[in-house]
């Protein structure tokens, strides 16, 4: 167990380091001086030089990378070049919005997708199952930003059921919840289909296993067999998939945050990219990568907690 965690964390650190180095390489390889691009065509050479020095771009690349990591160890991601606030402060100020959005979307998707998949598996090859199957595929393929745009258009602008922009007033939970509905729906819709399919497939597999026959042979009520004996096994792959799906969730969150003009890490990345605010880009990409690594690890741990077979092998 400890060994597993150590391995996992090491791998995570390596991946994060590689990702950051990759970004640095890209900044460096790209033609054009980032400082020049940032300051615009009319900047004087002196101004560009001083900006380069401030961003540390005048140093050789390996030194830049090392300096970045050295600062990172001290919890320092550098300074926002526009507002001059610490990047960590900005990133961690935006992170909760994205986490809440993703969490709501996944809970929403799980609450609908898992029962739907279960129902489909138990009523295999019926009309309802077929319809669920086709609808699931349709949901999966709908790109999040298209869903976001269409729901914004329909439910916020035309019908005006939900607010169109922002995340709601701070401290007003009800208002914030109302603002979460459409964005969470936009991200969660494809996951409903995805989870429904996944649970259907794994439920069918589990229901065919010998121990389910055993449970039935002991006359256990069907309700107990399905919900206590089979479902517990059938949801296991879901946990892994959600963990690995963090990357997709973050990407979808980015689009949704932009469409609904919500604060969040995705919007932060977008805005800082548009304004060429490299320290913030670096910091937020780093945090999203860390988030991904953490979520896969957590999903493994949750799986181990749910499945005793994995627990002992860890």
């Amino acid at each position: 167990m400890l060994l597993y965690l150590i391995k996992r964390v090491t791998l995570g650190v390596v991946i994060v380091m590689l990702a950051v180095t990759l970004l640095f390489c890209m900044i460096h390889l790209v033609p054009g001086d980032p400082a020049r691009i940032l300051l615009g065509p009319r900047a004087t050479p002196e101004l560009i030089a001083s900006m380069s020095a401030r961003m540390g771009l005048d140093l050789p690349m390996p030194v830049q990378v090392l300096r970045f990591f050295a600062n990172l160890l001290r919890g320092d991601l550098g300074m926002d070049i526009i507002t001059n606030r610490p990047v960590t402060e900005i990133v961690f100020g935006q992170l909760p919005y994205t986490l809440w959005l993703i969490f709501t979307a996944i809970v929403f998707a799980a609450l609908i997708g898992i029962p739907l998949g279960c129902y489909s598996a138990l009523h295999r090859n019926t009309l309802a199952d077929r319809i669920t199957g086709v609808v699931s595929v349709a949901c999966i393929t709908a790109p999040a930003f298209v869903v976001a745009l269409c729901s914004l258009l329909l439910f916020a602008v035309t019908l005006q059921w939900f607010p169109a922009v922002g995340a709601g007033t701070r401290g007003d939970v009800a208002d914030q919840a109302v603002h979460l509905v459409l964005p969470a729906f936009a991200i969660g819709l494809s996951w409903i289909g995805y989870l429904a399919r996944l649970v259907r497939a794994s439920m069918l597999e589990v229901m065919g296993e010998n121990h389910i026959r055993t449970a039935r042979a002991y006359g256990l009520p069907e309700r107990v067999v399905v919900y206590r004996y089979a479902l517990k096994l059938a949801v296991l792959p879901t946990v892994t998939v959600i963990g690995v799906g963090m990357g997709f969730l973050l990407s979808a969150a980015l689009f949704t945050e932009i469409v609904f003009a919500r604060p969040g890490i995705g919007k932060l990345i977008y805005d800082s990219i548009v304004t060429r605010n490299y320290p913030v880009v670096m910091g937020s990409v780093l945090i999203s990568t860390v988030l991904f690594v953490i979520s896969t690890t957590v999903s493994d741990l949750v799986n181990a907690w749910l499945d005793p077979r994995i627990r002992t092998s860890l």
Partner: protein
Amino acid sequence: MSSDVLTVTDLSVHYRTDHGALQALRHVNLDVPRGSIVGVVGESGCGKSTLIASIIRLLAGNAFIPNGRIEFESRNLLDLDEAAMRDLRGNRMSVVFQDPMSTLNPVLTIGRQMTDIQYRRNASRADKQRRAVEMLARVGISDPASRLGQFPHEFSGGMQQRISIAMALQAEPALLIADEPTTALDATLEVQIIHLLKDLQTNIGCSILFISHHLGVIAELCDYVVVMYAGEIVEEGTARDVFHRPAHPYTEKLLQCDPAGIAAKSRSLPTIPGEIPDLVELPAGCIFKNRCGYVMERCDNVVPAWTESAGTHFVSCHRTQT
């Protein structure tokens, strides 16, 4: 009340397939007398598993029963509704399945599974656990109380089969169906499990329907033996009769093929040449004719009658009738 716990009369089970009805069981008759152990022997695909599945009424979705009766404790199981049938399962009749490593739920503790199946008893949790511990001790699990919290994969195959047996006998059923319970185990474990079953059977006083393709095990354990071939019963009698004076050519071949019974040294193990006939389009006459060494003209189109060869020894073969 009859002296038989289970009486199967003229049972046929077919499976719907793309090519037509696959006649997995045809006109099977079988009695399990109270307190006895009846063995069913036959190679894979002969309908043993279908027989069990139809007794506990957990047949695959594409199966149907065109004719027959399955009388258990004087009630026809085929007439019972699902609720009444469920009430019997794990209560009056239990099953020990073949592959012990996959018959227990991997994510629930042994204790949980053993108390769950006592859901009918109106007892406290502690009471049910006490019962589980007692059963585990009876099947020879050491320190049973502390093992209740463990998961199936933490036990060896033999131990898991002991647990399955403990679960099956927990409710003291009238009939225990054992579906090749020892096939997946080592030979030494096999002997232990056989002895365990025999001991428990005398203590609890249940009947056992024991399915196996292993002749040695059947001979060791059973009072009566039924030999199945391609969905039919071809021979039936006391273990002594069937093993010492096999009347059907198939039984004879089976005995020759049993490695334990081979006396002379030879270069290869004997096999029965040929394959089980197509069960969708059944051949006319005797079902075994294409693999039989004594085939006669009559075998080709006349189905052999079920005849008494001696006392309680029955066979369906033309050879014994001449």
